[in-house]
């Protein structure tokens, strides 16, 4: 009977489907570890005792950033049901820059310098979470949750935030401006120690919350009406996700400044490589891909281009091209 062959062959193929993302995730993990090891050990001139910890701190910062950008992008794409959006396209990180500028503008650069670094960071993140959640809740609560409206509003707000910050920056005295600029554009070469500790704690907290919500994220990815139909409190879960995103964007922007396209690259690579939309696979994969891209990119930057250019330039170039390719391939949907 032909049905016999069917029943025989099917379990195998089902297995193949469930096994594959895990295997691919494993390969990514190996690659990520390998790129870190290469970055730490290759081409050391002089003392290992100095070079390895020095490089390890860079890797530490890059892992934090890879996590923050990757996870925030995937969650944002899940909420908006759209794979070419990133929190920064929607103006999340310009909001962070605006808050920073506002603090310096109102309280002065000396305040920024004298206030305890950790307190300052916590206050900034709290502001960021409050504002972005209110703002995006307001946009999401609109009568018609049109994706085009959402994108448009986000872009307009992003521009508004940027213009406001640049206006205030122009009105600042040069000394305050210098302090502010320093705060914006820390590169991987000089990331503040305390900031890294705070970021690591924030990321740990986000992971603890996120890990328990993996399956809910999957349901949210089906869209609002399916999620509600399946008994998920869509409003509440989306709010929690927006808070997580706001925290992560604050982390990455505080560490290395705004990076527009990086999240887009790693999230879309993860979807394509894994062939599944399950967050339990996609989220770790984006983080690993982020680590590979950042550490590998920094390695190439240091050893091939001899630090002639900034990593963000390389990332934005590649990401911009991918963005255009995605637009051409699928349309904005």
């Amino acid at each position, binding site marked *: 009977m032909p049905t016999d062959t069917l029943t025989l062959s099917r379990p195998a193929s089902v297995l193949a*489907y469930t096994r594959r993302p895990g295997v691919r995730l494993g390969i990514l993990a190996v690659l990520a570890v390998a790129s870190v090891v290469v970055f730490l050990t290759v081409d050391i001139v002089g003392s290992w005792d100095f070079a390895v910890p020095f490089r390890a701190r860079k890797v530490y910062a890059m892992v934090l950033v890879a996590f923050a950008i990757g996870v925030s992008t995937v969650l944002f794409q899940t909420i908006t*049901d759209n794979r070419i959006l990133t929190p920064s396209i929607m103006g999340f990180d310009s909001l962070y820059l605006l808050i920073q500028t506002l603090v310096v503008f109102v309280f002065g650069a000396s305040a920024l310098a004298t206030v305890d670094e950790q307190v300052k960071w916590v206050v900034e993140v709290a502001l960021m979470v409050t504002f972005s959640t209110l703002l995006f809740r307001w946009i999401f609560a609109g009568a018609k949750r049109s994706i085009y409206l959402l994108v448009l509003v986000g872009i307009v707000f992003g521009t508004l935030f940027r213009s406001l910050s640049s206006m205030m920056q122009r009105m600042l005295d040069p000394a305050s401006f210098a302090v502010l600029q320093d705060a914006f554009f820390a590169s991987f070469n000089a990331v503040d120690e305390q900031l890294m500790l705070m970021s690591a704690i924030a990321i740990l907290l986000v992971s603890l919350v996120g890990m328990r919500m993996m399956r809910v994220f999957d349901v949210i990815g089906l869209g609002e009406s399916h999620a509600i139909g399946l008994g998920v409190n869509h409003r509440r879960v989306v709010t929690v996700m927006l808070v997580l995103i706001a925290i992560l964007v604050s982390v990455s922007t505080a560490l290395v400044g705004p990076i527009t396209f990086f999240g887009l690259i790693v999230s879309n690579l993860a979807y394509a490589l894994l062939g599944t939309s399950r967050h339990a696979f996609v989220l770790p994969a984006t983080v690993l891909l982020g680590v590979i891209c950042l550490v590998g990119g920094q390695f190439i930057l240091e050893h091939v281009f001899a630090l002639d250019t900034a990593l963000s330039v390389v990332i934005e170039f590649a990401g911009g091209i991918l963005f255009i390719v995605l637009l051409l391939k699928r349309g904005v949907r």
Partner: protein
Amino acid sequence: MISISQVTKRYGRQAVVDDVSLELGGCGITSIIGPNGAGKSTLLSMVARLLPLDGGTITIDGLDVRTTPGSVLATKVAVLRQDNHLAARLTVQDLVSFGRYPYSKGRLTSVDRDAIARAIGYLDLEPFVDRFLDELSGGQRQRAFIAMVLAQDTDYVLLDEPLNNLDLRHAVDIMKLLRAAADDTGKRIVLVMHDINFASVYSDEIVAMRDGRVVLHGPSSEVMQSEVLGLIYDLPIDVREVDGERIGYYYR
């Protein structure tokens, strides 16, 4: 029973659903018919708590849709809307598994696996379990979504224009399936339908709506009358009996 009492929905000053009171789900299949803008989909969305009510109450087996937790209602009523585009890339198996989310919260038990397998079998989707949704034809995809809704194993199933974008053969397949599901498993299915003849042939009861109000609610033979349909659609509709079924003829 789905009890709708004095329910109103307004967009601006325009009442899309206007003081509607209705008992749904007393029989196997109930179809809601009416012209565009009659408030059919809006009413269904409110029952499925996808839209907030502006007035009135809706209860499902005594549970108020406004106050009952979504996780409880999800075990009572399942819903499928017209537009089922997904950005997420899912296989049929994945999709149908989501139907068990109200029970399993994502950790499938053997009961869940049985329900999934039954739903897949019921809709003849076995050959496609590992196929991605974007690799399926419109009819197959619609069947996959219906399988998800059936796997949810609820007493009430709400479907908004399930025949949308389907060719004749697939439309007939889906309607036969829904009829069988209602007869075999005692499910109460409420459909929003555009095709009055499909509604006539496959439903036990029809709710006819116009301008946000219910014009008539009764056995399908009662609603399938030239005068009633003419009034609802503003169109001369000649209802004839063909092989014992009441068929509306309105093409010219």
